[in-house]
């Protein structure tokens, strides 16, 4: 079947088999291998892309269904040679280890911020239910999303952003102590009623929530 799809701003025309999955179209036909296949039951979310602005598991959609659609993949998220704040957040906060779930994770998380600019920790965790990660225990993924939300909430453009392909420059050494997690201020609520109560009570008060990037870059302050 003839399809016409706009992917990352470029329009493609192809004759594709009706049963071809969108993820295979992107990976095999367009060589956009950032969307990954991690399962066969639409559980893992490694293949998430945006179709007409909505996050979609591209393993659960046929290429022919994308006819006439605008698709954004991880490869199209950075603009003008600058990382999207979500990409930056994942880098700053060590939100990835093996990197396999990362493209889908970043696409889902960036879609979340489009609909909810300042999500609580519980909302972030809930929004990422469709994306599995086996490396990070989700801790730094949550921080990465919080970082990106902070960046997108009206901080000066470019603050904390990195031009792509720039190396992280070391600064003054940080001690292990700086990374330790002392008790949360205020401790636990007296009587947590539900986990949601508890999580929202504590959302964002984690002492090691993104206060500052681990290695500051181009911030124009406190330079080397």
């Amino acid at each position: 079947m003839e399809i016409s799809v706009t992917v990352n701003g470029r329009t493609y025309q192809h004759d594709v088999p009706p049963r071809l999955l969108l993820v295979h179209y992107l990976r095999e036909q367009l060589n956009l291998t950032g969307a990954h296949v991690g399962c066969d039951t639409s559980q893992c979310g490694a293949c998430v892309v945006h179709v007409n602005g909505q996050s979609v598991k591209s393993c659960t959609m046929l290429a022919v269904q994308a006819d006439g659609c605008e698709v954004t993949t991880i490869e199209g998220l950075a603009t003008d040679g600058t990382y999207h704040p979500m990409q930056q957040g994942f880098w700053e906060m060590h939100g990835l280890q093996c990197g396999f779930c990362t493209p889908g994770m970043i696409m889902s998380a960036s879609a979340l911020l489009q609909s909810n600019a300042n999500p609580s920790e519980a909302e972030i965790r809930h929004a990422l239910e469709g994306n599995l990660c086996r490396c990070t225990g989700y801790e730094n993924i949550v921080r990465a999303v919080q970082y990106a939300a902070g960046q997108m909430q009206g901080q000066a453009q470019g603050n904390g952003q990195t031009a792509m392909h720039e190396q992280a420059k070391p600064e003054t050494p940080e001690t292990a102590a700086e990374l330790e997690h002392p008790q949360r201020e205020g401790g636990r609520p007296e009587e947590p009623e539900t986990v949601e109560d508890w999580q929202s009570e504590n959302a964002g008060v984690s002492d090691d929530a993104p206060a500052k990037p681990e290695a500051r870059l181009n911030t124009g302050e406190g330079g080397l």
Partner: protein
Amino acid sequence: MATTDAPAKMFGQALKRREDPRLITGKGNYVDDIKLPGLLHAAILRAPYAHANINSINADAARALPGVVAVITGDEIAKEQNPLPCAWAAGGVDNNVNTPRALAVDTVRFTGEGVAMVVAESPYIAYDALDLIEVDYEPLDVVVDAEAATKEGAPQLHENAPNNIVMRWTCGKEQETTQAIDSAEVVVRQRIVNQRLLPTPMETRGYISRYDAATGEYTIWMSSQAPHVHRLLLTAFVLGIPENKMRCIAPDVGGGFGAKIFVYPEMAATLYAAKQVGQPVKWIETRRENYAATSHGRDHITDIEIAGTRDGTITGMRVHTYANLGAYLSTIAPGIPTTLYGRMLSGVYNIPAIFCEVHGVYTNTGMVDAYRGAGRPEATYVIERAMDMFADEIGIDPAEIRRKNFIQPQDFPFDTGLGMLPYDSGNYEPALDKALEAIGYQDFLKQQAEARQNGRLLGIGICSYVEVCGVAPSKWIGLTGEGWGAGLWESANVKVHLTGKVVVTTGSLPHGQGHETTFAQLVADELGVPYEDVLVEHSDTQGTPFGYGTYGSRSAAVGGTAIYKSVSKIKEKARRLAAHMLEAAEEDIVFEDGKAYVRGAPDAAKTIQEIALQASVAYDLPQGMEPFLDETTYYDPPNCTFPFGTHICTVEIDPDTGKVTPLRYVAVDDVGRVINPLIVNGQIHGGIAQGLAQALYEGAVYAENGQLLTGSLMDYAIPRADMVPHYELSRTETPSPVNPMGVKGAGEAGTIASAATVSNAVIDALSHLGIRHLDMPYSAEKVWRAIHGQ
């Protein structure tokens, strides 16, 4: 950056990873991202029965399907290939080793065993063709339970393994233990099950094999934790060809957790297929295949007897374990429930008498081998549950019974008497105290008591752990009866080029651990060059020195030390060359922070870059000195390393539904010195999540007929972001005396501690109801039934 400034110290700095830019932009290069000219695609027909004879295979219709290039069966491969090797024949493993072949011959022994391989022009066609292959099976009786498999009359899997026993293995002091238990004031006995787990790296396995008929050389791109080992095992054992006729390349690897250490049938099958069809062949595992046919973890049935005094001094422990090893022996399977389990049963305690007996057993299930922690989580679960049950029996606080029995700091190096190498260093009490303080232990106990008055169920669980990693002295693991088939050293080469840029090639390789960053930090510091000037190359057998692989939390302690030692040799050569350049005596030259100078005259220094240039152009070298700064080290560690710590978790259980909610999780780990705390903390986070998930969610379930009921991500509960708590980490730092950097290892510590931690918390929440033990995972139904006595 001006090279005259002393560079910032990199060791200990939380530098973000240089790997990440490619991974956050979708430019990673995983095996399924690789395309080659003429690439064909393979799919594998897998056995629907857990135990059956294959009477016949008819592939005519599949071969006739347009786009199908070949259909390959086990019979034809068996003419050219040997079965896969088992590389760890632990004590007691004798003539009963049974390993899989590339594809099954005559009999299948677990659901999902490969029976035929289709090679086609696209994966879609290959999968269509699978449906056209007709196999006539004769089903046989099935056994999936390890204990049942050893009983008279159980179905037999292999002729050379009577009663399905792989080995009977023991360690410790049998007589003293019997005496200790027989004469003890208090003995607690309990059967516990450590359920089977599915490792589930997010990237499934995948291989691309290519054969060059002109040279007889194979190349295989593999999602692998140990490409050098895979090259060795595939050439020398499976194919019977020289090792230099194969190149193994691990590109970006999407997680491993142990499951990608092993040599697998599909590697051998794709190598055969590529040679047969004369084109490269790609096989990418589906998740269902990953669950059926990639090695699993754990699966122990254990009987514990722990003995001690009324005031809480532990005097002895006897442990018997049935370790389910699956239908065949995976690459290092026999070593996991023996060396890495039995020899670690003493945990952090000074227990005078322990005896452990393990029966490794064949069953009609997928193979079981190392999965994150590999033996140490099982050992930790045994001793830490046992300590809690004993404390409960005599009415002592779980924190106090631990404190009372800890190995004391002055006792290191400590020999537990279980045949493990001596624990290198440790100081267990500060980690416990730090964790108790962080969680607010006494306050929580008050809260818990109040909550119980109101019918609410709160629990707190403590786990103090020690683990063995940084494996291993080759002599110990090989000759002394441990049965490991080769060394466990690591090698590294460091070159300082004419331009002053440094290239490190290492046999150690990452699959998420950030080696490119950590190793560059280490070298930049030691050599005194800018971090940006250090390039780390890995994962390709053609370009890197031999390495035994990334597992057992050994990269920093073993691979990193090999790099460290190569840099030390370069510094020494640079010092000698600088003496020549500065016309001074060698013994008067100091090398520090990237500069060599005459002691007391640092202003007239030669930088490492100037020295490298001089060494490369080689116009004027000292008599007898070879050009170039280029050093290689083969490092065989003198001992393993032994990280430790205390984790504490609090939970609340809903009495109406049985649902367990983790409230807080505090981890105090001591992994020795830390090169990059950002990376170490990430490892601990992920480790905790996997052990916590064993306690609360995960468990592979086989039906009695051998069908894997948890055969896909729809059925097996990998935790999602909303199923795990925030983790509160801190550390103590006890350097390891084993290596010059003082590092231990962090990759598995979290997993080793967390299943026992959460388990202890859940049981603590129920203890006042008379519940002493429940087996993981703590599903709402299981907990509800326990609460309501159903």
